[in-house]
Structure formats: C-alpha cells, structure tokens
C-alpha cells in the first residue's frame, strides 16, 4: 500500500472493503490507495470482483464493510457529494440510443445543473474532442461500437470529474479504436484526472496503469507496477550459449552457484532465473573468472499475460482474452521463450 503519500494526494482511499451477495463474498477485504492524477488498473478475470469495486466506489452499491473515500469523500456517508466529483463509464455504453449524441451529452449537462447555454457549449466541446461532431445530430443507435463508447466516455466527463471510473472501457473494441481510447485516458490522466480502470487485458493495464492490482475471487492477489509484477511474479530469465559446447558443464556449475538453477532451454543453451541486476553482474564476473567464452547472452522478462496466468492458475484456464490459449504451466513456460527479448548482448 502506498500510504506514504500524503492524504491530499490520495484520490481513492479504500480499506477493508467488503461486499457479499448472499453466501458469496464478491469483494473480500480490499485495501487500495490511488494517488491523484494516476491511473490504477484492476486486472482480473470475469467474476473476480472488479465491477463490484467500481460500483461501490461510484455509489451504485453499498459496501457491507470497510471504508472508501473518493476525493476525500466517504462513499457511504456522502454518496451525493461523491457523485459531484466522479464520472462513470460502465461495461455497456450507457447512452440513450434513440437520442442524438448531442442530446445525450446536453441532457447530462442539464442534470449536472449547468445552465442551458453552458450545457450546450460543453456538449459541443466534448463531441468535438471525441471526434463525434459530425455525427452529433444522428441518433446514437446509428453509431458504431467505437463511437458509442466514445459518446459514453464523453457523457461521463461532462462535469469534469476529478475521479473517473472506467469499467472494461475497451471490451469489444477493435485495436485501432482501443488505441484511441487509450490516448484519451492518458490525456485525462495528464490533465490531473485520477482514473481507476478495470480490464481483463494485461496489455491494457500495462499500457495505461502506473499501478496494477491483480484480482481473483474478490481479493487482490498481487500489486505493483507492470514491470514489478513481471519480474517479481514470473521473474526474469537469463539465457547463455557458450562458444564451445565443452564449456557447458562448467557453465552449468556457475549458474547453479550464482543463480541456484540451470535449465537447458535449448540445445547448447542454459537458462537461469535472475531476480535482480546484481545477479547478472555476479554471473558475468563469475563467467569472466572461469574464462568461459559466451556466444550469445539474453534476458527475457515474462509477459504480463504469464504473470496473470501464474497468479490465477488455479482458476479455470478457459477464459483469457487477449492471450493465446495456453492451458498448462509447461506450455506457458514454452511461450516465455518467445516473449520480448529485452537485452541482447553478443560477444
């Protein structure tokens, strides 16, 4: 938890949050602190409890336990005050399809107590920003999926919210539309809006969020930056190929000695886990001391997909959008060998 930040810089502060639906605990004592202006990613499979957290923080659901402050306001004690500072974009584009894009946004402005003139100006401004100005007068049901999403996002920004909740904002969008939406989220974050987004796509969390929580069955099972999660959970692997195959036994000894493990990842190549950069330095020093000539050396970091798989392995293996289907741990490690080679050093 990042409680070292001053309270003024914390836009979302959650402690011990609980929500039960009958016998089932959807959210189980979750703690969370999101600094102002940052993007926080809630990552998890369907049914992990992500949406339930968003619904509690956006005052749609009453928590069964714990505390939640949004922009310093208690969601349970002052829900109406919370509503004045938040924006919410749910999983389904919540727009009135029979109304035009303009009418949708204008209505939200009026509901936010803007005078008619301001609501009109704000609607035009947002429709322009979101590339909907041309189709502003068309009924929303004629919009494409991507346009509807943008309209929905625009609707949640009418009141210039300080905290924005995005519940699976890109589900069902094609890659180009998805990238557009990512750009919008980045811009919002840069202009000081705090964003909490849920996603099933590791790639999305990695692309947008400074801080990620991986959720499974109502709990946070890992926290950190994308990089931290990759290194800490799935680890980094160094692979070495000696010039002479005769050096392999000595190399194996060095790896076992320095890294504690040595696997033959490919014929003539040995691999071992590196937990930090000091290990790499120690390994190179040991190689120099033993005078082993290395033909090829590379380190690979696991993809966030693998982190996610590692963490939620016990869960059903079927539903992992955004990742090629991999069902067993051994195929997962095989896939690791094709994932982003980070540094390539050749001697």
């Amino acid at each position, binding site marked *: 938890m990042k409680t070292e930040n001053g*309270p*003024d810089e914390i836009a979302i*502060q959650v402690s011990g949050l609980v929500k039960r639906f009958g016998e089932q605990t959807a959210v189980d004592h979750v703690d969370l602190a999101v600094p102002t202006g940052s993007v926080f990613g809630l990552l998890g499979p369907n049914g992990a409890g992500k949406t339930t957290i968003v619904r509690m923080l956006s005052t749609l659901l009453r928590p069964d336990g714990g505390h939640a402050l949004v*922009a310093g306001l208690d969601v349970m004690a002052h829900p*109406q*005050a919370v509503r004045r500072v938040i924006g919410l974009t749910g999983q*389904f584009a919540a727009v009135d399809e029979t*109304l035009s894009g303009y009418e949708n946004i204008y209505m939200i402005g009026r*509901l936010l107590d803007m005078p008619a003139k301001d609501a009109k100006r704000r609607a035009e401004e947002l429709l322009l920003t979101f590339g909907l100005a041309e189709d502003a007068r068309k009924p929303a049901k004629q919009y494409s999926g991507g346009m509807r999403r943008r309209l929905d996002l625009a609707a*949640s920004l009418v009141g210039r919210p300080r905290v924005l909740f995005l519940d699976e904002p890109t589900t069902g969008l094609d890659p180009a539309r998805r990238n557009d939406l990512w750009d919008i989220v980045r811009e919002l974050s840069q202009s000081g809006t705090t964003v909490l987004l849920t996603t099933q796509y590791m790639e999305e969390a990695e692309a947008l969020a400074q801080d990620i929580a991986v959720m499974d069955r109502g709990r946070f099972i890992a926290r950190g930056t994308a990089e931290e999660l990759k290194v800490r959970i799935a680890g980094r692997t160094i692979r070495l190929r000696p010039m002479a195959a005769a050096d392999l036994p000595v190399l194996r000894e060095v790896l076992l000695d320095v890294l504690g493990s040595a696997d033959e990842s490919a014929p003539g190549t040995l691999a071992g886990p590196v937990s930090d950069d000091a290990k790499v330095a120690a390994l190179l020093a040991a190689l120099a001391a033993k005078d082993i000539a290395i033909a090829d050396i590379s380190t690979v970091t696991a993809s966030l997909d693998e982190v996610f798989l590692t963490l939620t392995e016990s869960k059903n293996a079927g539903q992992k959008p955004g990742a090629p289907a991999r069902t067993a741990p051994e195929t997962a490690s095989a896939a690791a060998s094709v994932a982003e080679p980070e540094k390539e050093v050749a001697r």
Partner: protein
Amino acid sequence: MAAVTSSIAPANLSSHTGARDTLRHTGALIRRNLLSTKATPEELLDVTFFPIIMTVMFTYVFGGGLKSSIPGGDYIEYLIPGIFVQMLSFGSIGVGIKLNSDFDKGLMDRFRSLPIARVSVLTAHLVSSVLRLLLASLITFTVATCLGFRVHTNVMVFFAGIGLLILLGFGVSWLSLYVGTVVRSPQAVQGVLQIALFPLMFCSSIFASVSTMPGWLQAFAKVNPLTTSADAARALMVGGSSFPLANDAWITVAWAVGMSVVFAPLALRAYNRHV
C-alpha cells in the same frame, strides 16, 4: 487508516437534492423522453394504430352483429368510449417498458452516478406517460370523429370523461412501473401486463354488453374496472337515456386512486432497492 481525510473535499456534503433542483432534473428527463418518442414514433403505435384497428375491426366486422344487443343501437357510439378505456389502460404498459429498458441498458447506472434525486427518473417517466396518453387521446378522438363518432354531452363533460380515463391510466402506470422494476426484461414487462389486461379488456363492457354474457362471466365483468370505466366514459361522452351516469365515475376514480395507493409505494420501494 480509515480516518484519512482530505483537504480537497468540497464544502457541499449534502445528500439532499432541493425541490427546485429535482424539478429541473425531472424536466430534463421528461425532455429526454419526449425527444425519444419523437425519434421513435413507432413507440406510439400501441396508442394510435392499435385502437384504430380495434375500432375499425369491431365497428365493421362485429358491429353489425353486436348492435342489436347494445343500448342505443348505434355501435360506434357504444364502442368509442370503450376504445378510449382500452387505449388508456394498454397505453400505460409503455411506461414500465421504458423504465425497465433504462435498467436493462445501463442508463440507470449513469443516472444514479449523477448528483440527482434518484426518484426523478421515475417521476419523469410517469409524467411522460400521462403526456403520451393525452396525445393518444387526441389522435383517437380525431379518428373516431372521422368514423362518425359525435360527442352528445357538452365539451366540459367530455373532457371530464377523458380526465377520468387518464386518471385510470395514471393508476395503471403505477402498476406498469412496479412491474417494470421487478421483472427482468422489457419484453417481460409487456408480457406480464398484457396477460393481466387482455382478459380484463374482453371480459368487460368495452366491446359488448355485459348482459349478453353468461352469468358467471357477468359476475366478473360487472366488477371489472374496465367495465365501470367504459360505462362512465359512455355516460360522460355520449350520455342520454341509453347511458345514464350512475356511480361508475366514482367507482372508476376509486379504482384509479386505489391502484395508485397500492402500486406507487410498491413501485417506489422496488425502484429504490433496485441495483
């Protein structure tokens, strides 16, 4: 840790929305409903085309056979006040469908995440429903006039009749809003309410005289609110010795008020609990 406070909290912690704000919010939502109806006029079919079909069909297909058994002997004079009853009760199904769609499509989540009184969405639908019924009354009256229907009482009494039936529609609207909140899909709202209303419509005096029905059915038809309201509407729109004004008007008022008293709290409770 829970006691973390923030200096960025705005001064306005009030969870109460003022009456004037709520009125303005409701106005914005009524505007939304009207724009929606304007954009999708096919939603008015149930209160325009359907009553016209029923009028034409009953007048020209069954009317010849039925006219000997009805008071006054002029079938269109007998039928049209009943068509108003049919239209204003069935026309209230729409409001429940609209409310249910708002839940179904996630729009209610958007409204609930805004700093407005939650009830304003429901109130706006109710007001829009009444406006819809008024518009439908005008259309039905125009068509009825073209088919030869004439008001034989005076204009004030005629409007009292329309007012009475809209009051009934108001009561049915509360039932519709209640059903719209508790069932799962817009289609189910329509299904449930049509199943409830169809027997009431046919086992009433709307299309045929109750006296021609078998005794067991008469017992039901006589207490059926659509019979009393159709009889009251005839007395107020056509009148004369054929259709005297008995207690039917007051019984209809009692039904309308009774339905509102029963279903308004049920609807509001279900609505406020709906997540």
